[in-house]
């Protein structure tokens, strides 16, 4: 008896000489950790399967060891291997995968999160502009996980926000300069251009993202905002930020 599930692999660790410990995202159970016994030397049960970011089908043993699943075998569905030769895209893919894993644990909203990550990985491979894709996919994942940004109207007065704009990290929304007084902080100053990009990235259908072009400084300001928001709400920094920062140069 085994249970079949779609999965996107997040991380793999070698355990001893033979076994591998795999953390992966699933649509039904959220983020799961499973043990692949003897997967290091014999790859017959997992041909080309055990690689981070791979979209696979896993067969889990019906018997579980508490929080640990047992992986019986796996099949590769898609490897997104062109990302490995384009580091800014790979950096974006890694960040989105790690974010999806965090948001899908506990697993209530795992299905839309899984679908959003799978779509984002495919689009990253298909050559849409990486910066706008990363921002829109991150906002989309956050929304699926219940952390959608409030961007259309000021959190305090409910009107179209008037500059100088601010972003409330605890509440994930925008404020007028005049309304920021009583709002819960920390607050970040938000450039009006960056605010517009955020709105478009959150609302624009993904097939139109190619039109959303932004300069490097604006991308950096938006990513810094998302990073501060995540650090506040997750209580720690995602591991993938450092690599992304290293490889996403100025253009």
């Amino acid at each position, binding site marked *: 008896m085994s249970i079949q599930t779609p999965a996107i692999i997040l*991380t793999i660790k070698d355990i001893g000489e033979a076994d591998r410990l795999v953390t992966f995202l699933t649509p039904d159970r959220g983020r799961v950790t499973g043990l692949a016994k003897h997967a290091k030397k014999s790859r017959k049960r997992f041909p*080309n399967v055990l690689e981070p970011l791979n979209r696979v089908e896993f067969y889990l043993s019906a018997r579980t060891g508490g929080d640990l699943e047992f992986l019986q075998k796996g099949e590769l569905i898609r490897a997104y291997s062109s990302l490995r030769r384009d580091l800014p895209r790979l950096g974006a893919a890694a960040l989105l995968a790690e974010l999806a894993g965090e948001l899908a644990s506990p697993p209530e909203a795992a299905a839309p999160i899984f679908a959003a990550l799978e779509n984002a990985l495919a689009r990253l491979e298909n050559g849409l502009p990486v910066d706008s894709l990363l921002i829109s996919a991150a906002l989309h994942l956050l929304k699926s996980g219940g952390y959608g940004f409030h961007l259309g109207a000021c959190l305090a007065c409910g009107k179209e926000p008037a500059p100088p704009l601010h972003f409330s990290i605890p509440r994930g929304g925008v404020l007028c300069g005049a309304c920021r007084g009583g709002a819960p902080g920390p607050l970040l100053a938000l450039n009006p251009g960056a605010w517009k990009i955020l709105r478009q990235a959150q609302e624009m259908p993904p097939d139109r993202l190619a039109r959303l072009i932004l300069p490097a400084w604006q991308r950096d300001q938006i990513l810094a905002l998302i990073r501060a928001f995540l650090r506040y709400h997750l209580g720690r920094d995602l*591991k993938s930020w450092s690599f992304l920062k290293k490889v996403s140069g100025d253009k």
Partner: protein
Amino acid sequence: MAKGAYPEALTRVIRAIAKWPGVGEKTATRMALYLLRAPEGEARELVEAIKELKEKIKFCRRCFAFADQELCPICADPGRTQGQILVVADPGDLLPIERTGWFSGYYHVLGGLISPLEGVKPEDLRIRELEERIKSEGIEEVILALNPTMEGEVTTTYLSEQLKPLGVKVSRIAYGLPMGGDIKYIDQQTLKEALGHRVET
């Protein structure tokens, strides 16, 4: 282990051996019992060898392979081909490549692979040291022999982008190796072919 089945001194050795790769408690018990019955000299020799291993083996200050001197035996050998560096991830990858007899230049051990999702960054590896060597040793070609895994390929891409501006030819071993494979476990013939059919990046 059944509690109290053996005296503590014996259990302690079993516990220590059972931590070794590929050794379970059964095998560890057999080994410990062997040591107990072995001649005094044999057990002492093992103790001394382990002590020396921990005291004397460090990293070569040039290539970061294992060494018992300032330089490893390969870096200390002036007869090897100058101008070529072969880059591996771990000291353990060096031996299978050296055994093929295909490569006669010098090595460089990165100390791992870039892993974005684990937070392993380029700065965590010995890449700066590699760049210094390329400049100071008159290197013309760098051969990247990293595992055909996601981390290996990402590191290959990163190094190729970083090193080419230094004016060296950068090549990687052919991916005739099975995907997800490990240089340490690949047979010599396949490894030799992958090295021979390297491609420029």
